[in-house]
């Protein structure tokens, strides 16, 4: 038994069961932080039929839904910069929203009943408000949404506002299609947009 053996024993002891303890501690930290109101943002990454979705919420409501192709790490870094860095994976903070999204994507839910923390203003806000008026299974063209906002010539700006929707699915930008009926672009990818429209048409 040398000093080196002693140090090896110490490191072995320090690491035994460490990962299990750590998993429990991390879960407890997120739950404690959320309960104590210490979080700027709580989030979870949930598996859905259209891939992994990041769902993030502040104390006010759901603040961001992001598709995997948006790069979740990048989205979290943006939330840290714009809202605050006290961000933890806290499934309890978004459990209700994640549950409703899952039900919607399985065709068991046609609308959402969730507090939203929508941090946009001006024309973007007008567009998103107009989108919330498009019912399940219906579609509108970019021009029709422009007309609703009172700026009929702002068709491109409507496209931009849809592309920058921080709450896709919850605010249904996928229901805005091109005048010829083709889906048009979508942050989650054209395939996902087509799948959502097919789901709602079924």
């Amino acid at each position, binding site marked *: 038994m040398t000093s080196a053996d002693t140090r090896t024993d110490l490191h072995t002891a*320090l690491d035994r069961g460490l990962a299990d303890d750590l998993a429990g501690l991390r879960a407890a930290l997120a739950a*404690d932080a959320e309960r104590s109101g210490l979080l700027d943002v709580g989030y979870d990454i949930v598996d859905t039929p259209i891939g992994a979705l990041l769902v993030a919420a502040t104390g006010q409501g759901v603040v961001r839904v992001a598709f995997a192709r948006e790069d979740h790490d990048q989205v979290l870094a943006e939330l840290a910069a714009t809202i605050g860095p*006290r961000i933890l994976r806290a499934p309890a903070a978004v459990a209700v929203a994640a549950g409703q999204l899952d039900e919607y994507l399985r065709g068991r839910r046609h609308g959402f009943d969730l507090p939203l923390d929508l941090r946009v203003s001006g024309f973007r806000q007008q567009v998103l408000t107009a989108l919330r008026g498009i019912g399940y299974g219906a579609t509108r063209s970019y021009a029709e949404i422009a007309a609703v906002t009172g700026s009929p010539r702002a068709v491109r700006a409507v496209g931009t506002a849809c592309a920058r929707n921080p709450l896709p699915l919850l605010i249904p930008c996928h229901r805005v299609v091109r005048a010829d009926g083709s889906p048009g672009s979508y942050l989650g990818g054209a395939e996902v947009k087509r799948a959502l429209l097919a789901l709602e048409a079924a």
Partner: protein
Amino acid sequence: MSLPPFQTVVDVHGATVLRVCRALLGPVDAQDAWSETFLSALTAYPALPADANVQAWLVTIAHRKAVDALRARSRAPVPLAHLPDRPPPPVPTPDDDLWAAVAALPDRQRQAVAYHHVLGLPFREVAELTGGTVAAARRASADGIAALRRSRIRSSSTLQETP
């Protein structure tokens, strides 16, 4: 340059801080110290300079929490109230003898072993954390390892363990 999400801090430093807390307090009380360290760090996080040494910052907090825990232990040798949602204490491990030996070290030696041998901090930084001189930190670390080695030899000879 803004601060990364706090989840990144937990991902990168969580295991290291738990090892240090275990070395300072043993595997059971380490869990409370870890929770208190990270709750405290989360609260203060927005004020942390973006170029700060995050590990050093966390270890300083953990050091203070561990000193508080040891003080509380010596004042009232009863288990502290557990934080809500705390995971159950770990089951007895093959390392119980070693943990007893670590716990029996004088505080300064246990701290020096934790910061130098577990964290890998140079003695200058160990001395900054614990107070005292660099030479004293070096001595405390060497004395601590020597004491652990003696107690390991004693326990293996009494238990006839195979090395």
